[in-house]
């Protein structure tokens, strides 16, 4: 590659990152402003700098901001998780939601909340920090099932992987429906809304919990971005350049499932976001994961925040779960990708 195209690419990458970042800031301001109680932008800024009315302070710091940060973090995590899945499977259609990893994580979380807390959706400090481990168990069971069922003749073809994922999704859904009888009807309705994707853990404890996980896991992914590049070239080339592919692949799968599970524990089963954001990022900056991963993360955060804000506003005072908004946008995108892939 010519040096100056390289420099140009670098400049384009920086430009895109900064633009996305500015868009996120704007989306945050819009999201604080929008909702059942409209707060004018001037008041928002005044409140952020400590000169607001107590009522605005309460609304913004205790309700809007935790939710906004939660949306950003979940969006970021799901995009990274999707990008890894696509990288290690060589499958542009992979997404933790479509593959049923979210469904598995969601299933065990509902079980956990039900059996260990007496009722669904209790927000004790300790239980919030333990919850992701419950999600991890379900996520790994789902991932394991998907992997062994779609494994045939020594390989996993992309299409078979997705098809098996759809089946696993349906199985966990049916399992939950059968389990619903043990739940109070109100808990069950909450569980259903949440499984279709809804940012519900809207206090700072949840934000810190998920931030902690992501701060640990995401640097590992970025460190492994070169491995992802190599894996994407195909098994024979990857072996040729000396990558221990099965070991690397399993490790990255582990990280990806962990990130997805943690996000599910607060954001429910958001499907298609892990598909859209990495794909957009690759279209914008090319296939190198060192660049596409950070951009995908920012785009995912931006998209989920916008979708959540839209869901809060579009039917106000009713609220549309963010997962539904993402599905309405994401399903056509998935179909578009499907039509294009051979």
């Amino acid at each position, binding site marked *: 590659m010519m040096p100056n195209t390289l420099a140009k690419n670098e400049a384009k990458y920086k430009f895109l990152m900064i633009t996305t970042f500015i868009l996120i800031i704007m989306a945050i301001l819009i999201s604080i402003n929008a909702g059942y109680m409209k707060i004018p932008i001037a008041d928002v800024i005044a409140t952020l700098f400590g000169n607001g009315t107590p009522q605005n302070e309460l609304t913004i710091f205790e309700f809007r901001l935790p939710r906004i940060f939660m949306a950003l973090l979940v969006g970021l995590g799901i995009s990274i998780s999707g990008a890894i899945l696509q990288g290690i499977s060589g499958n542009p259609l992979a997404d933790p939601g479509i593959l049923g990893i979210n469904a598995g994580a969601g299933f065990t979380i509902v079980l956990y909340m039900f059996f260990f807390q007496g009722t669904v959706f209790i927000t004790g400090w300790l239980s919030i920090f333990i919850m992701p481990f419950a999600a991890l168990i379900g996520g790994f069971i789902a991932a394991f099932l998907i992997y062994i069922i779609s494994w045939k003749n020594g390989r996993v073809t992309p*299409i078979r992987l*997705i*098809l098996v994922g759809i089946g696993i999704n*349906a*199985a966990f859904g049916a399992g939950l429906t*059968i389990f619903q009888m043990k739940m109070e009807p109100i808990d069950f309705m909450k569980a259903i809304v949440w499984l279709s994707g809804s940012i519900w853990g809207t206090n700072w404890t949840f934000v810190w919990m998920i931030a902690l996980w992501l701060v640990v896991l995401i640097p590992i992914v970025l460190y492994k971005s070169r491995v992802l590049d190599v894996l994407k070239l195909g098994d024979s080339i990857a072996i040729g350049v000396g990558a221990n592919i099965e070991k690397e692949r399993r490790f990255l799968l582990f990280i990806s499932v962990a990130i997805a599970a943690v996000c599910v524990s607060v954001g429910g089963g958001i499907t298609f976001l892990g598909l859209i954001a990495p794909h957009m990022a690759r279209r914008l900056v090319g296939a190198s994961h060192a660049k596409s991963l950070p951009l995908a993360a920012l785009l995912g955060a931006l998209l989920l925040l916008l979708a959540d804000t839209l869901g809060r506003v579009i039917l106000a005072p009713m609220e549309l779960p963010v997962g539904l908004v993402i*599905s*309405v946008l994401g*399903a056509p995108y998935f179909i578009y990708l499907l*039509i294009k892939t051979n």
Partner: protein
Amino acid sequence: MNTKTTLDYKNPFTSSAVIIIGIILLALSVVVSINFGASSTLSYQDVWSAIFHFDPTNSSHVIIRELRLPRAIAAISVGAALAVSGAIMQGMTRNPLASPSIMGVTSGSSFLIAIALAALPGISYLGLMMFSFVGAGLGAALVFGISAMAKGGVTPVKLALVGSAITSLLSSLSTAIGIKFNVSKDISYWYAGGVSSIQPQHILFAIPFIIVGLILALILSRSISVLSLGEDVAKGLGQRTGYVQLLGTIAVLLLTGAAVSIAGMIGFVGLVIPHITRFLVGVDYRWIIPCSAILGGILLITADIVGRSVNPPFETPVSAITALIGVPFFLYLARKEGRGL
């Protein structure tokens, strides 16, 4: 079937046996289904006399006539309709993954039912059923239309993937409609899928459509056998394939639309039953279609009984039971990547 050059006709004796044993099992399960429930005082004699010597002052008779019998009939007719729909779709498209729920037909129905509930509150059941038919057509048209645009042609797997994407799109939109127009509860009834709150009048409206659909399917069965050899072969044999496909599609829409309007979205019946039937009676659709109808009825009424007995007095939706039976089967087919019908 791709690998077989001649039709693998099984002994008609086997097929007749499937039909006869099937009908006996069906009758038994109807009796069990009627007899089984929260009110334990019903005896088999009550069931018998409620059907043949109805006494409106006897409360057991009323329970049987108004609740239990309609429910059993609904389960059987929905199961039969979905299974035959799936059989026709698999035969016409030579696609082992074809079935009303996977191909987005049931989700189209439910979507238009959601629209009808929101836009026309207090709509009659007959009106709802019309929306359901139109929706079935819409769902099928969307999925097949989009798949036809795909690079590399329509493959069984692509149809299934487009179908599942369309299903998640339409169900998201339906949920949004439900929240917006405050009809979530009504809509979730169709999405949960079950025969627990059947009303006798609904069945009276829907059954004629199902019967017409089944008769149409039986008339077409011979042509579908020919079509299942491949469109080129069928044309070569002098069949007007377009005509058969049109009539077959009408039968699918009638059967699926009516089934969804009774019981909502129930998955996997239309996928699993035709495969089991083919395994039992071979590849002749003149046998497959009637046998699918009977086996589909048995499956759904049994699933309904199981759903009622898992956790009494609560009911587990029948769609969850069919999914548990159907998923392993679906996974088995997925491993084969849609090959080998």
